């Protein structure tokens, strides 16, 4: 009995996935657990694995295509088993309803299936009609109607998104007559040489867009900046690195992460989540660290950062950043931070403000360490200085609370021995 292969929800927020690469081809034998394809979710590239033994058949989604979660992307059949590709005995009456278990979010179930069902698309009659007349493949669209049904709006949006060869449907909002494009246009409409270039949102960009407007809009931010003398931290770091020798290296970022984590243990008021009708104060410190990746950013989480040594922090931070950049982070590795740190020092940014990642109540923006003339004991001397800016959610953190935390952090960095207290 053939088993459907569904686009599975590979991250908690995933609604659709793009098949990056098929590891198995049509006709390849597969066993349960085999990686069938690599799928780009809204967060990372994940493996779609086989849930049955057999032979891969009827691959319905090409590499590069995006489909909604719950859609059938292929079938696993027993070797030699007819999958109905040729006219055979009539399908059992149960076949059609069973195939509906492929709706969004449904648990993948083995179900008898006939070829039309393997590529079944839920679409309104009007959407089908428009698709037929304009030559659009409904399988390539994500439905926004009830139960993931493709409706007219989805076709209109696809038409706008693609290249103008899909004419918008008849009824337009008032005063928007259908403007025919000059000619069936090639994908280079706005191309690099043109006046503009329309780049479709990748999964990660969509998620960034969705997440960030839930922050700076509704979350009442305020910002606190302090300047830290990094001379002694630099000395301590040099000493540590000499000690470590070949066994590794501690970066300024590691020192800042460690100090932040320790300061948070002393200021629980800043290590908190805003939860609509309550505030969750965390006793554990899980630090999110913003990592720039191609086409976006993600904040992997350094768990129990307060309890880790600088060498451990260094190693873990590097591993997480590498994984983030190669899009191999597992969901558990980028969720559950209690506070975040964003460092743009390597870009020579003096200071900046970062956007809070809700439900966290604060984020620390780290600038570059730069030598500056400062007055020490009445003398002007040059010292390595660092600017830290904390964004606070005022619903959780008040000015004085945030300032107290920053002062502790500043003291720890200016006198690294304080971290031992």
């Amino acid at each position: 009995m053939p088993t459907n292969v569904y686009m599975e929800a590979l991250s908690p927020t995933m609604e659709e996935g793009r098949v990056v690469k098929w590891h198995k081809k049509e006709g390849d034998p597969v066993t349960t657990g085999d990686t069938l394809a690599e799928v780009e979710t809204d967060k990372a590239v994940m493996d779609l694995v086989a849930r049955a033994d057999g032979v891969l058949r009827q691959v319905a989604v090409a590499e590069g295509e995006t489909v909604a979660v719950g859609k059938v992307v292929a079938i696993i059949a027993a070797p030699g088993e007819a999958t109905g590709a040729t006219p055979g005995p009539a399908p059992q009456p149960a076949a059609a309803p069973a195939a509906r278990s492929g709706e969004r979010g449904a648990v993948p179930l083995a179900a008898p299936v006939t070829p039309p069902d393997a590529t079944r698309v839920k679409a309104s009659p009007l959407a089908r009609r428009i698709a037929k007349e304009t030559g659009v493949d409904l399988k390539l669209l994500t439905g926004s109607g009830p139960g993931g049904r493709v409706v007219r709006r989805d076709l209109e949006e696809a038409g706008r998104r693609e290249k103008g060869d899909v004419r918008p449907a008849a009824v337009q909002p008032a005063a928007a007559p259908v403007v025919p494009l000059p000619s069936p246009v090639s994908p280079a409409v706005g191309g690099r040489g043109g006046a503009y270039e329309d780049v479709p949102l990748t999964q990660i960009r969509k998620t960034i867009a969705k997440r960030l407007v839930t922050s700076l809009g509704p979350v009442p931010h305020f910002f606190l900046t302090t300047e830290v003398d990094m001379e002694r931290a630099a000395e301590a770091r040099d000493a540590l690195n000499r000690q470590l020798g070949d066994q590794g290296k501690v970066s300024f970022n590691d020192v800042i992460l460690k100090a932040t984590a320790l300061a948070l243990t002393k200021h629980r008021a800043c290590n908190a989540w805003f939860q609509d009708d309550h505030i969750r104060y965390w006793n554990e410190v899980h630090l999110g660290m913003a990592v720039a990746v191609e086409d976006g950013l993600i904040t992997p989480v350094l768990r129990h950062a307060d309890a880790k040594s600088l060498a451990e922090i260094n190693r873990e931070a590097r591993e997480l950043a590498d994984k983030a950049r190669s899009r191999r982070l597992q969901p558990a590795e980028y969720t559950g931070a209690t506070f975040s740190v964003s460092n743009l020092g390597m870009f020579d940014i003096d200071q900046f403000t970062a956007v809070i990642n809700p439900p966290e109540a604060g984020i620390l923006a780290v600038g570059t360490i730069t030598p500056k003339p400062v007055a020490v004991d009445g003398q002007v001397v040059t010292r390595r200085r660092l600017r830290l800016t904390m964004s606070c959610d005022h619903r959780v953190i008040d000015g004085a609370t945030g300032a107290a935390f920053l002062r502790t952090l500043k003291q720890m960095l200016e006198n690294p021995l304080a971290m031992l207290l």
Partner: protein
Amino acid sequence: MANQFDVIILGGGPAGYVAAIRSAQLGMSTALIEKEKLGGVCVNIGCIPTKALLHSAYVANLLREAKEFGVEAGTLKTDYGVAMQRSRRVSDQNSKGVEFLMKKNKITVVKGSGTLQPGRKVKVGNDVYEAKKAVLIATGTRVKGLPQIGLDINKTTVISSDEALFLEKAPPSLAIVGAGAVGMEFANIFHAFGSKVTLIEVLPRLLPLEDAEASDALTKSYKKRGIDVLAGAKLTKATVGKDKVVLDVDVSGAKQKVEATAVLMAAGRAVNTEDIGLKECGIQLTDRGFIKVDQNLQTSAPGYFAIGDVAGPPMLAHKGFREGVNVAELLAGKKPHAIKYDNVPSVTYCHPEVASIGLTEEQCKERKVDFVVGRFPFSANGRARGTGETEGFVKIIRDKRYGEILGAHIVGAQASELIHELAVARENEYTVEEVELAIHAHPTMSEAVAEAALDSLGRVVHL
């Protein structure tokens, strides 16, 4: 704290009480504040009692033709007072029904006038109620006069529907200002109870928001039964006496006087936004005086939502119902189906009824849509002939290329019931072909819907 609820709703009309029920169903503690009877304008002085009176009018008119059907019931005598008493019983039944629904769903009903306060609070008398999730404003609208030309509602000679619904006797003559749904329905009612009715509309036709063909059909029907219809008529002056009113009317240049024992104001409604603390909470209004809301129906003050008439047109109970449901679901963390405001049916329950959904033919022309019209008259429908209800038609406007149902307009005895086939079709993006393909029982008035769909495809059968 005893006075804390998840959701507090100000106003127990259609939007408010349905929001309360849905909130309670979703497990939220809910309080509903209402200063008068539950059910609002709709149940007490709107939709429900007028439908009762319209049926009395229908029975009167039916009996006038009874002989033709082989029935003679002796001398016909009408009594508006008795019809009114019946309509009150129907309203009370409905209001009690809402009360029962509140009890059943364990909703706390607070009697009194509520005033909004910052911090999601509502003050009623000396008590302050606090909402943990949101306050819903559902204060609705009310009738209004035309004081600019001397037509202040005085409740004796210049009345609104509020008074018309409680009259003991039909006035000998009645001028009705405004030929929208309310004006059309009262013209129908009072004419059937023996009043000499003059219907005055400033716009060029009756039911100005409906398709022109529907307006024409109703104008003909009303004139035929002896209702005076003045469309494109501007009121220039009103002389309000003790027992009569004289109106100076300018009908496209021709001046004339209309004299009546009473004037019924049926033009426009005032929004109930005064003295409920909107300003204190930072809740803004639109240019037209409705409460300004975003696409989630949230006002300019977070935590305060507006639903029903007060949130803007169309001012219809069923639009309020749906807004109440949607906000409740939103507050419970659900993702409600977006309201399609272009798919709200509009119904006038006069005889024949007028029901519509979507665009009118004029709107299709304005938008330069390529469309085809299909029509089917009830005079060609077997069931309609049998009941003697051959007035009216079904008109379906479809998109020429894809068959999308752009608009549908029905005039006929059962228009209010027939329109929903097309509402379901439009909501689910069926084209005229899906409507036609569904087998319609014979003989029914619904067949006219399928025939109109067929006509738009050039395949009408029974014509």
